Structure formats: C-alpha cells, structure tokens
C-alpha cells in the first residue's frame, strides 16, 4: 500500500479531508506534523506520495504560503528535492500549492534550488481580483496535452469547491503561460459548466490563462487552488438533491496513490 505523507504545518486545516481522500483512493495516509520531520521522528523518503494540504500555514501572515515555503526550502530542501527528483508524486492543494510555488518547486522550470529564492521566482499566487476570500464550486478541465501524472486520463471535468483569498496565478512575464502550455505544465483550467473557458465567477480569482493547476516539467508535482478532497463522495455535490452527480475529485488522489507505489 502506498504510504502517503500528509504534511501538517501550523495552521494547516484540510489535512483530514486529504487523508480521507487518500484512504478512499486506496492509499495509506498518515498526517505528519512538520516538527516530526524536522526532529527526525519521521523521514520523508520513507513515503511514496506527499500531500501538502490546504489551510492557513502560519496564518498566511506574510502572504499565502510564504512562511511554509520558507520552512520547506530552509529546513527540508534536501529531502524534498530528492523526493521530487525520484519522480515520486507531490500534490499541493490551495495553501500547499501556494507554498510549492513560493518554494520554487512550481513551475520549476530551471529545476535548480535557487529557484526558491525571490529573484528566481517565475510566478506567484496573489490576492484574488475581487479582493475577497471566496468559497464557490468550479469546473476544472484537465488539459489534454499535460504531462501531469495526476490528471492524465481523467475522463472529464472535475467539479470541486475553491475557498481562498489568494489564488490569482500571475506569471512574472506573460509569455510564461504559453511556455507552460507548450511544455504540458498546465494541468487544470477553470471552465464553465459547458466546458468552455470563461471569466468570473467561473474563474474565481482572475488567474491568467484561467490556470487552476500547474505541474513541474516532469509531471510528478501538481499544485492546484481548488479542493478535490472536498468532493470525494456523491453527497458532497451541491446538487445531489436534484439528482446530479459526477466530477469527483477522487481520481486525483487515486493517480497519486498509483504513482507512489
């Protein structure tokens, strides 16, 4: 059984949903506190699949994910880079996505550790265009040409909630979006109910290119703002009382569990 490490930083709060999702997807999840990794009580490299769940790590006090990214970079950098370079799957959701971007692991174009430092940062996740935290359900299209191991082979769009105030994906230079697309690094985009690219509120935060999730060039690290772990059972669908279903986020976790074997 794939051992899944659900990394809990101070302020993480969607770790239990992620653990439940991994369990339903056939994995063996364990919620591990960052302090347990730092003290050596647990070793990242003993696990096959790493999930950075949502929440407000360190209160998001200096920008979402900033301090968590710093902790990853300064204290866990070595192990994390080995984990990624081994090709083991890493999934960052919401705050976890923000941390992966700010730690330089996403989009990870140059692959170097310096990418984590500010000067090398290629993109960021910043305040929503609406200037507000927003919680709403969104449709996500798996991009057909993506190299991402989590979204490859997804049958159709996902239907999952977002809940964030800083999910606006902004590249340092606009051509980055095209470059990411060309390399297959755009994994998920916001679309409307009919599957077409659309503006607010289908794109809830104003992200460039309707980007909802991106992966690293190798495809084993995925970050996304929406919450696939909050739609793993049919009764979580907002309109199940109307007989509607589908768009479960569970396959994302199943792919991670599969790849982490």
């Amino acid at each position, binding site marked *: 059984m794939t051992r899944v490490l659900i990394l809990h930083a*101070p*302020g993480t*709060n*969607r770790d*239990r*949903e992620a*653990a*439940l999702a991994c*369990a*339903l997807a056939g994995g063996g999840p364990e*919620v591990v*506190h960052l*302090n347990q990794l730092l003290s050596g009580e647990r070793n990242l490299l003993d696990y096959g699949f790493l999930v950075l769940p*949502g*929440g*407000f790590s*360190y*209160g*998001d*006090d*200096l*920008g979402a994910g*900033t*301090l968590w990214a*710093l*902790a990853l970079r*300064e*204290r866990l950098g070595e192990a994390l880079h080995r984990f990624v370079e081994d090709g083991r799957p890493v999934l960052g959701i919401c705050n976890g996505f923000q941390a992966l971007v700010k730690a330089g692991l996403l989009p990870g174009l140059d692959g170097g550790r310096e990418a984590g*430092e*500010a*000067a090398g*940062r*290629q993109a*960021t996740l*910043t*305040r*929503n*265009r*609406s*200037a*507000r*935290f*927003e*919680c*709403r359900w969104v449709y996500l299209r798996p991009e057909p040409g993506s190299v991402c191991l989590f979204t490859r082979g997804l049958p159709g769009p996902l239907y999952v*909630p977002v*809940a964030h105030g800083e999910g606006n994906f*902004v*590249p*340092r230079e606009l051509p980055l979006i095209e470059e990411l697309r060309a390399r297959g690094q755009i994994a998920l985009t916001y679309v409307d109910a009919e599957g077409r690219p659309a503006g607010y509120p289908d794109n809830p935060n104003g992200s460039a290119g309707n980007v909802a999730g991106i992966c690293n060039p190798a495809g084993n690290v995925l970050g996304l703002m929406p919450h696939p772990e*909050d739609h*793993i*059972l*049919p*009764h*979580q669908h*907002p*309109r199940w*009382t*109307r007989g509607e279903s589908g768009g479960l986020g569970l396959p994302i976790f199943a792919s991670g569990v599969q790849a982490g074997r």
Partner: protein
Amino acid sequence: MRYRVIVGSAPGQTDPRGAGLCAEIATLGIEGASEAQTFDLYFLEGDIDDDAVEYLARELLADPVVQRYRWERLNGAPREEPLEAGTWAVEVCLLPGVTDAVAESLLAGARLLGVGGLTWAATGQRYLLRGRLSEAEVHRIARSLLCNEVIQQYRLGPILPARTAVRRDDVWVERIPLRAASPEELARLSRERLLSLDGAEMAAIQRYFAAAGRDPTDVELETLAQTWSEHCVHKTFKAVVDYEEYEGDRLVRQERIDGLLRSFIRAATERIAAPWVRSAFVDNAGIIDLDENLEVSFKVETHNHPSALEPFGGANTGVGGVVRDIIGVSARPIANTDVLCFGPTDLPFAALPAGVLHPRRVYSGVVAGIEDYGNKMGIPTVNGAILFHPGYTANPLVYCGCLGIAPKGRHRKQARPGDRVVVIGGRTGRDGLHGATFSSAELTHETGAVAGGAVQIGNPITEKLVLEAVLEARDRGLYTAITDCGAGGLSSAVGEMGREVGATVQLEQVPLKYQGLRPWEIWLSEAQERMVLAVPPEHVEELLEVCRRWDVEATVIGTFRSDRRLVVRYGSEVVADLDMEFLHEGLPRRELRAVWRRDVPADPGRLPPTDPGELLLRLLADPDIASKESVIRRYDHEVQGATVVKPLVGRRNDGPGDATVLLPLAALWPEGAARAPSDGGQPALALGCGLAPRFGMRDPYAMAWAAIDEAIRNVVAVGADPDRIALLDNFCWGSPQRPEQMGALVQAARACYDAALAYGTPFISGKDSLNNEYGDGAGGRIAIPPTLLISSLGLLPDVRLAVTMDVKECGNALYIVGLTRHELGESYLQRYLKLEGGRVPQPSPEGPALARALHAAMRRGLVRACHDLSEGGLAVAAAEMALAGEAGLHLDLRQVPRGDDADEDLVLLFAESNARYLVEVRPGDEPAFVEVMAGLPCARIGQVERIPHLVVTGLSGREVLNLPVRSLRRAWKGEAKA
C-alpha cells in the same frame, strides 16, 4: 538599529485593496477621491544591518512577482517624503499591546532565514489618496475607514509604532478599606472600579470580610466582581421576579417567579427529559447524542459590546471565544454559525449617535472578523442570518455559535486534589481587562475611549494549535478537567474548575507578553487563545511534550487543593485567599420587578389597494430578505467536507437554503474513515435558527414563539426528525432594572417553556446579554428591540433523506402545509405599506403535528422540495423556490387553508403566520402524501410550470400576480436590470 520597510504593488499590477477603498470612500459621500494605493509597512528592530533588512524584505516581506519594496534606516522619526500636489499619505499602526500576529510571524520567518538579531517587529499600513480632498476629508476617511482609534492610531504622514509601554505602578497589591465604608462609598467603589455590583452584593462582600477581620485585596475584590458578574452567573435569569400583567389598567395576573431559568428554560428541558440529551446548562456547551459512539456539542454566545467598539476584533474574538467553549468540552469544532443584527446601512451620517460607528462599517468589520477566525481555523461557517433595524444602530448584535463532535466518554470534568493547574496557549497581557463586567454595562458616547482595554484582536492560528494539542491530550487521557479562559480570565477558569476542591495558583509562573502587570491584571486578563487543564502529576511531562510538538506553550501554574479555598500567590506573597463556598454561593439573589401591559392591537382596517407583484419585488429586495450570497461566499462553508446541504442551494447554487445539513466524516479522522461508505446511509445533523425581533416590541411572547417555530421549521424543512431537535436560547435585551423590559423578558421566557413543551424540543444551552442600551450623555436612551435568537440542532436519521428548497421538476404539485391567518402585525407587508396595528402571528397549535406528519412524508421519500414560510409569507417563499429551481410556479389562493378572517389576497400572500411550509410533490406521490397529511391543514395550491413565471390566481379567480422568475431573481440578488 531600527528600520522601516514599505511594500507596494509593482508597476502594472492591480491593487485590489486600493480599488475597493476608493469605492468605500464614495459611500462616505466624499466624491473627490480619484485613486487610492495601499502599502504594507514593517518596522524592524534589533541587532541587524542593511544587508539583513534587504534580505528579509526580498525573501520574506515582498512578493517578487507582483510587489516592490524599499526600506529606510530610522534615526528618530521617519522622514516625511515630499508628495505631489493633491496626494495625501495616511499611515496606520496598532496601539501598543494590541496583538500583532503578522509581526510574530515575521519574527518566526526571520529565525528560519537565519536572521537571529531581529528582536522586535511591528506592522502598519500606508495609504496614498489622490484627488480633490481637503485635510478634513482625509481625516474623516482615516477615522471612518482606515483606522479604529480603539486599537489603532494614524497620522497624515509617516508613523512610528510605540513599543509596548512597560507601566510601573507604585501600587502592587492594594488593600481596599471596605469594612468601614458607608453604602454610598460602596456604590462609588463599585462604579469607579468598574465592578458592576449593586448595593446588596457590595454589602455581602463587606460582611464576609468583616467576619474575616480584614479588608480585601484588589485581587479578591476583582475576583468576586468577575465571578458575580451578569456575564458569568446570570443574575437576572436566576433572580426572584415579582410579575404583574395588565390589560389596560386592570391587573390580570400577578405572581412571584422563582427564577426565569429555573421556572421556564430548564424546566422545559427537565419535563421533556429526552434520553438523548447528555448535558444541558452545566458545561461550556450543551451536548446531545449523535449515535451510540459520538456526541455533538453546541454553544452560541454573543459578543455585542466589543463588536460595537471594534467590529473586526469584537467579532473575531467572539468566534474565538465560542470555539474555545467547544474545545472546553473536549470536542472538535465542525461548524460555526453567525447571526448579526445591525442598524440600517443607509443611515445618514448626520443621524448617527455620538461615539457610534456607522452600521456599514460595523457590518463590514464584523463579517471580516468572522471570516478571518473561522476560515483560518478551518471551521466551516454554515448558518446564520442578518437583520437590520434602527434599534441596533448603537447596539449591534453579534451571535457566534459553534458545533463540535467527540467520541463519547472522553471528556472529563472533575479536577482532583493534587492535580496541577496548567495554562496552555497564548500569553497573558493587559488585554481584555474587565470584559466580564463591561459586557454587563450600558454603552455610552464615550465607552470607546474608556473601555478600549476590553477589546482585542484574536489569533486563530494559535487557537488551532491549542485545539490539536487538547484533542491529542484528550485521547491520551492526560487531563481530568478542562475549561476555556474566556471572560474573567484565569480567575473565572480556575475558580470554576476548583469550585469543589479549591486551588492554589502562583501568578509569577504565568507566561506574560510583557512585564509590568500587577497581580490582579494577570489574574483577570482576558488575553485570547488560552485554556486551563487539570493534569494529574504523573501526566504533566507527557502533556508538556504533546504541547511542545504542536508549538503550544504550556505552563504549570498551580495545584488543586482539597479544602475548598482559592489561594492566589505571587511568589511567597498571598494576594487572595477566598472561600470557594462564598465565591460561588455567597451572591445574594436579586429581586426584580416586572410589569407587562398586554398589547391591544389597533385595527388596521381593510388594506389599501396594492399591486401584489410590485410589493413582492420590493420585499425580495429588502435587506433582511435579499440574498446574503456576498457574505456567505466569504465564509469557507466547505472545509471539513461535511456540508452536504449547503447554505446556498438550487440549480445555480444560489438559493436560500432553510438549514445546513452536515455529515461529519473527515473531522473524525482517523477513527471516522470506516464511516465513509459512498452510498450515504449515516445520520446527519441539521443546523438552523430563528428570530423575529420585529414582533418583540409589541408581543414578546409571540416573538419568542415565532423564533422557536421558525428554528424548528428550518431544520424540519431539510429533513430533521422533529423528535430529535435540540434548541439553544440567546436573549439580547435592554436593562432588566426597568420593570417593562423585565416584563417583556418574562413573557418571552414563558413562551420558551410553552413552545418547547408543545414541540418536545429541549433547550440544551443558553446565554443572555442584557443592558443593550445606549445612553447619549444627555439623558436620552436607546434600547434594542427585544431579541431572542433560537438555534436549532436537528438529527436526520439518514443523510439521504435531506431535502432542499429549490423546486425540482416541472409538472410536480405544490402543497401548502399549515393554516394562514389574518396576522399582519409587524409584517413586512405592513412595513412597506406603512400600516400599524393588527395581530402579530400567534402560536399555531397544529404546528407540532404538522412537523411530524411532514417528516413522515419525507421518510417515505414523498417530498421533492420543502421551504418554510417566514419573512414575507407565502409570496416570498414561493418566489425563492422558483428562483432557486429556475422554474415557473402557478398558485391558486382559493385553495389555501385559511382562518375565517383571512379573506384578502394580500393576507394570503404576505401574512407571516407560524407553522407553514411549501412542499413540492411528484404527481405519482400525491395520494400517499395526502394520506400522510390527512386531518391536518394542507392543500394542493398549484404546480411547477415550464414557463418561468410566478403566476398567482386570487380569491376572485382572476390573476393577481404574474412575474418572470428572472425579475424575482434580479430583485432578490440586487442585480441591475440587463
């Protein structure tokens, strides 16, 4: 060395906060602002150099993609920079001693980056305002939008935050010469020290110390004032009440009531004696069974006074406080609720009473405070209401509720002699002194200036860590009792936990935010995010280890005794030594006078000719009734993945659900993993609420009944079993010293008893917030409308039974359940037609039978949609069902079961009679549905239509209303016409 770092948007990047600010300035009536820019300020101090500051700014403080930074070394005051003409700079920072969570994170981040020399940090904001603005206007913008001088300060130009002043008092512990004091001197003492104790109470304290042969210390006096405060001990609800009821001048009822709580609220719970109630009125929260393995706890608090002064911080710590109540029963919080009452948001500034914040500002601050705490703790905010009334302008109401879940049998609540007193979580500062006594005082035009210390900002992340540490300690069995440090601080927490055994506390052991606190300040401080645990000596090491792992500070500060004495020491000095029996039982019982004059409604006569369609559109746009989507979406209502019926429902996820349904799974991880079959089938929880303050001025009995009826209807409408509903009562009232206010309270409490018994729904917890009055300093007084919030917690035997209010399929039949009476008093119809008098909705005796029959129909799967009828009556409910389901409805008023005098279309459409529902039934299920409802007022009044119009046939047989659903939706959502 001291530095200042300024971070702003990079060229070409948007500044959403600045754009929002410009719009808000326009709402002040100031037209000249053409642009606003926002910046974050950081002040850094310590053994750091230019390189270190450059490094911190680059790596930590500014986002390299969308922001730019600059910094300057500070030698004395920051330098003024020349601004172009027409530009104003406003800078804001916190006052010393106010929690600055960002600064704490900054210090932690600097340590991670290896910048160890940084010893102090503070944050602030800088605003650049451009346009045609006078200096006076800029001051007004600063005071109205940018800065709240209760917790912040501002300058038109560079600001420099002061470091926390270490106050050195000459006095350490004061002895108060109480024994020799005259009654007048006792009264003055109570007033000057903000004790909020009356003459009889001060005299009781005087007698106690006379017998002891000494005068009290300030620590002892403060401890007594806190323990005996209205907030902590509910004197009014326990008082003996002499009640007189008049009809005109004739005395029709006279009685002596042995306490409202005992005679009405608890009496209802005791008489109902539901076997599934595990704990009512004794612990931090009420507790009921969910199933054989799990229990559910629920508590609702108010945080009105702090929210009036500092809306963000008041609501923020209100949420934090009620969440700690749930942690205090060893449960994991799974949902928050928030019910808010504000003054009208379009109130002219000229009409604002002195010293009062504008309702719009209170509204936005309160919502932001709730959002911040709930979202950051990862607790979904799933239920609530927002109402507006001029009576709430000076006294806004902020009700914060929290629901928790726990495995049965793990919560422990009896400290034993020898157990250690352990305080965990946040540090203690001079924040929140006198909160318990302040909450019982009347607000005045200068309260903000004198009671600033009672208002605080929370730190939800600290509380999240405390939560995780407590639950781990619970599962390891490391404590024998736990309670939160709320109003009254350590004094209240230790005093309660040690009630039966006594305790010794060493104040010098309490971790402080800064030095210089006097013993009574440490003891009474209401600093946030603290819990107190009773820990057997053999578990202390393990508990400290658990806390360390969660980055939670934990300190042993004392020991529980066996002699029922409360001994507080600072080092070797005894600063308080009180008998627990006197502390908890020495309070003289209050005697209060209550007078009630029965409402004799004027006959409003026939209604003026009115177009029902036009009236419906106006009601849908009324702030009380209109969509609250803009607020609901700011609350994370999905976190924990349990929200299976969401606050917003329907075809476009935007219709007004009656109640939320929760299926907690992830909250139980890892034990709950086995509870997650994909086909549902488990019991689920429904959360609803009811309040009807509009009826309160005229008929508080009817008001309370209507609130209970609505709270029950809400959860029944989504599928809860009427025989498994628990209620919470939260009274917000004016001064109980005024006999007519007290009379209204008696009326409402009596309705609580009668309605709870009629429905068989026990109360499991309740709170009261009294003295919600405002004195303008010139003898004028404004009291709030008597407001009772009823929160309901229902159980669905099977989550698959859940029903939503949006109509589902064309061709289905619509049934109205319940009787419509000529009850228009204080209705929205009367408000819009400017009519007075008329009967307010009275209890419907058929309500309980209707709820049970409707539930039986739901259990048989006969109900496709169900919506309760409340504000705006049948017309509004039908419009909401149509717009949520995006389908047409055709209704025929001739079929509506009605009272004899309900003989007008407007009455049938807009009366707000209790105990009514609108139900959608499939044609094939109609015979079965009719059979289940047999003998009860219930009739088919129409059907769901493909053509998306709401069409109503009147009593005359003619069409009286025909509106496109699109128009209803626009009115209700406040969208401009396309």
